[in-house]
């Protein structure tokens, strides 16, 4: 491809293209539909959380964004570029923390990062200070000469963050960034993501931790079996999909509780417990009085309630 044609292409790119623009994106594996006509827009500077059960299509969608998954249909642009046609232009602007760390186990921390700085096109002189800065930032500077295999799980995860941030990407993609980490590391990583967000960068994060999604994200998109089943700001989603309070009762009292609750309230099970959702906390108080059954706990509704409601409370057959 000549220099001229690639310049022409970039000049036709809308200057303020959305970070991610997806319309009807579909991915099929034979008969199985992993993503079904997904629409999603992520504005620049926004932090969007992708939630959904395992197998809902989150990682598949992420793969579509930088071309390792070929979509079967639909329109997809990242910074105005189609990942099926010009993945490199997207990847130059992208930092990814994949589900697996995929660090070179044989190499040291510094060797690993220098290698990836090279992949990202950083010059040797630019790479070293950048690496040192990020290692210090992630409290890994004392480990710079340690072999990867000697690092703890939390350290490896932090190093995967360093790697993703080397090229100062415009878009950061985090695929289950804190799964399996202790709370200290989790808080450290959240803080880094928040400061990255404050710098006006765009973030797409998948997670199974509702608290994490609520804390980090401007907007949540809930996927189930490849379909968007809910979207909105965390507070907004809760107010719309599961407003009110939940009373948790012991399961053997379900019949009595049913008799005393209002028909528009919601009764469901979480684990072995019987949960009743009512619009106001007073409703649950009067339910307790009327039925003579004390709730084990009463709490405001949270994102987890929304998630469980929208993705169905049953496990899929394939789980």
């Amino acid at each position, binding site marked *: *491809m*000549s*220099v001229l044609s*690639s310049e022409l292409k970039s000049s036709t790119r809308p200057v303020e293209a959305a970070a991610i623009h997806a319309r009807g994106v579909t991915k099929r*594996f034979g008969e199985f539909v992993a993503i079904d006509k997904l629409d999603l827009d992520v504005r620049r500077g926004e932090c969007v959380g992708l939630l959904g059960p395992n197998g809902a299509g989150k990682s598949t969608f992420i*793969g579509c964004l*930088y*071309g*390792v*998954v*070929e979509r079967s249909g639909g329109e997809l642009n990242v910074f105005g570029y189609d990942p099926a046609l010009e*993945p*490199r232009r997207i*990847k*130059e602007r*992208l*930092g*990814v923390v*994949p589900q*697996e*760390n*995929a*660090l*070179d*186990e*044989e*190499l040291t921390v510094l*060797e690993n990062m220098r*290698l*990836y700085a*090279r*992949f*990202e*096109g950083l010059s040797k002189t630019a790479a070293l200070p950048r690496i040192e800065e990020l290692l210090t930032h992630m409290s890994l500077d004392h480990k710079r000469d340690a072999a990867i295999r000697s690092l703890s799980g939390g350290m490896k995860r932090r190093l*995967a963050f360093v*790697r*993703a941030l080397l090229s100062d990407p415009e878009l950061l993609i985090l695929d289950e960034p804190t799964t399996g980490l202790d709370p200290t590391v989790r808080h450290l990583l959240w803080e880094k993501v928040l400061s990255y967000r404050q710098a006006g960068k765009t973030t797409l994060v998948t997670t199974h931790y509702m608290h994490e999604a609520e804390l980090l994200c401007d907007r949540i998109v809930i996927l189930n079996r490849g379909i968007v089943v809910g979207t909105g700001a965390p507070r907004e989603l809760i107010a719309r999909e599961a407003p009110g309070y939940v009373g948790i009762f012991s399961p053997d009292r379900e019949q009595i509780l049913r008799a005393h609750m209002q028909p528009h309230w919601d009764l469901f099970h979480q684990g072995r417990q019987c949960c009743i959702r009512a619009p106001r906390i007073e409703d649950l108080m009067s339910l307790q009085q009327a039925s003579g059954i004390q709730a084990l706990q009463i709490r405001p509704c949270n994102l987890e309630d929304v998630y469980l409601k929208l993705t169905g409370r049953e496990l899929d057959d394939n789980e």
Partner: protein
Amino acid sequence: MSEIHVSLRLAWHVVVRNWIVYRKDFLANISPTLADPALMMTALGMGLSPFIGQIDGHSYAQYLAPGMVATTALFTAFFECSYGFYVRMTFESVFKAMLTTPIGVREVVIGEFLWVFIRAALMAAGVGLALAVMGLLPNIWSIFMFPFIGGLLAVPCGAIGLLAAAHVRNINQFQTVYSFLIAPIYFLSGVFFPLTDRPILGVLVHFSPFYHGVRLLQMAAWGRGSLGETVLHLTALFLFTVVLGIWALRKIRQKLTI
């Protein structure tokens, strides 16, 4: 910068990555590709030479010598691109992270080919030097041709390795590929005995890149060969490189993307 230039620069990063990992375990990595031809030369070359007499005016050790250069190129390339690549792809997940950088599948595959070219060229130089010291090269100048021919031979053999890596369902299946494809190619392509009086085998061997490399190395080492035959084998190696290379790229793309 042109597309080809960018692509080659990115492919070069893959070579650098492999080199950095390779040198960590340098001795273990270099041993089999040097020890095997050395053992073969000792056992067959020196051991059998007195019993065999001359082949085309050369001692058996001299007959065997260029084949050892070809062997080191074949094994370097095949094992690096089969086991080596499979381990990188499956157990080390190297490409899961690498493909999030500007490096694409095409650069990964071109990088692997560049890597085996360089490695095989260096190994061919090393083996060639050892053969020269042992006085087994009638045409001593051939040691300057070995790296180039060895590198050229390594690329299509590497492509066969990548194809194997794309097809096996677990790492044990490489053993089958070795036993039924690589070993026959190795033993029957004129390294150990001349194919001049074997009409069927003599034709069959043309369908593997290895034979063409063996012939080029033999012509160089013995200092005899025609321009016509040289052009024929170079062209064949080139065609094998293109066809197997593109095929391997397609298969590896299917493995690394979904």
